[in-house]
């Protein structure tokens, strides 16, 4: 896996896990890779994967069955979609609006592109 240089690695591993769930490579109520296996796959320290899993657990995207491992939760997909949507509306769109202002592009103009896409 190629990491970008900006975000902390554990956050990028979290994003990676969320992508797997959205793509249904990891399904609801099924066991996800163990901390050690994922660390080995991604060539990172297992403690970093553990931190990523902790983070996902706090968001209730995954849960821990003691002695068995981590599982994707029933609501994982919905939760991730909501988080991603919030992120798009509140952060990515803000950047788009800023660029529109900067280049003097109207919403109607953008709408034309949107309709013809």
């Amino acid at each position, binding site marked *: 896996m190629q*990491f*970008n*240089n*900006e*975000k*902390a*690695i554990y*956050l*990028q591993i979290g994003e990676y896990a969320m992508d797997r769930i959205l793509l249904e490579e990891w399904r609801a109520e099924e066991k996800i890779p163990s901390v*050690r*296996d994922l*660390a*080995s*796959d*991604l*060539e*990172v*320290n*297992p*403690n*970093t994967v553990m*931190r990523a899993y902790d983070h996902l657990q706090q968001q209730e995207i995954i849960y821990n069955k003691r002695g068995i491992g981590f599982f994707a939760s029933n609501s994982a997909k919905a939760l991730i979609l909501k988080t991603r949507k919030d992120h798009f509306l509140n952060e990515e769109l803000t950047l788009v609006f800023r660029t529109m202002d900067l280049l003097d592009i109207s919403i109607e103009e953008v709408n034309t592109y949107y309709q013809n896409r």
Partner: protein
Amino acid sequence: MINLKNVCYHYRKGVPILENITTQLQPGHIYGLLGLNGVGKTTLLKNIGGLLFPRKGTIEIDRLQPKQREVEFLSDIYFVTDQAELPDWKIRQFQEVYGALYPKFDAQYFDSLLETFQIDVRKNIKSLSFGQVKKVNIAFGLATNANIILMDEPTNGLDIPSKTQFRKIIAKYVTDERILIISTHQIRDIHHLIDHLLVLNHSKLILDQSINALQDSFYISNNPSDAEGAIYSEKSMHGTLSLIDNLRNEESQFDIEFFFNALSADPSLVNRVKPTKANL
């Protein structure tokens, strides 16, 4: 746990190599031991491994002192040196004779590691290249299943695919009982594996911090507006990278090489590390 108390070492009187090194290394972590050439990294590893004895101070590993060289200690530690001096035997013969010294030795695991590294176990060690001997030594070291693994420049001499394999193997090796200490100049080969940094500078241990604590304390920014007033900055193709105090409580990716350069330029920046509840 590896417990070092005021460890001092010199080869020649009046030329200290290690001065008052005190630290506790905990199982479950991969320690990155960094420092410029000649600052004593290999000497420190040799002291921990019982190959050199501290002139002053003590080293204890689960209550055993390396300098006593007891069997219980020696059979649970392996030191992968930069220049391995293995006997001129067939690999299989080497594994059988030396493997017998390690009660937890796993011959099957050794074979699977050699297969991963594409080394034919029937070959004679004498006929192998530098990199191939390195691979045999790494495979042997890990197959001992020792709880303490010391590695001096392990990726030096490895070809590109083997470096990837090496990272995968190491990520799997570290468990709650094991301590790995890796000394290297090729930090980019292993930077995502390390979770705790030890930096030697002029014979002293000037930094002993977890990557988490460093991420809490410092922010590495590529935003041009952060360059002014940065603790340290470097220009690259992608713009300017700046080390700043982490005031936003956000975490950036921690670039160990960049941080090491900053630390070499100004060792006093260790004073900016925020105190944490636990250092691990």
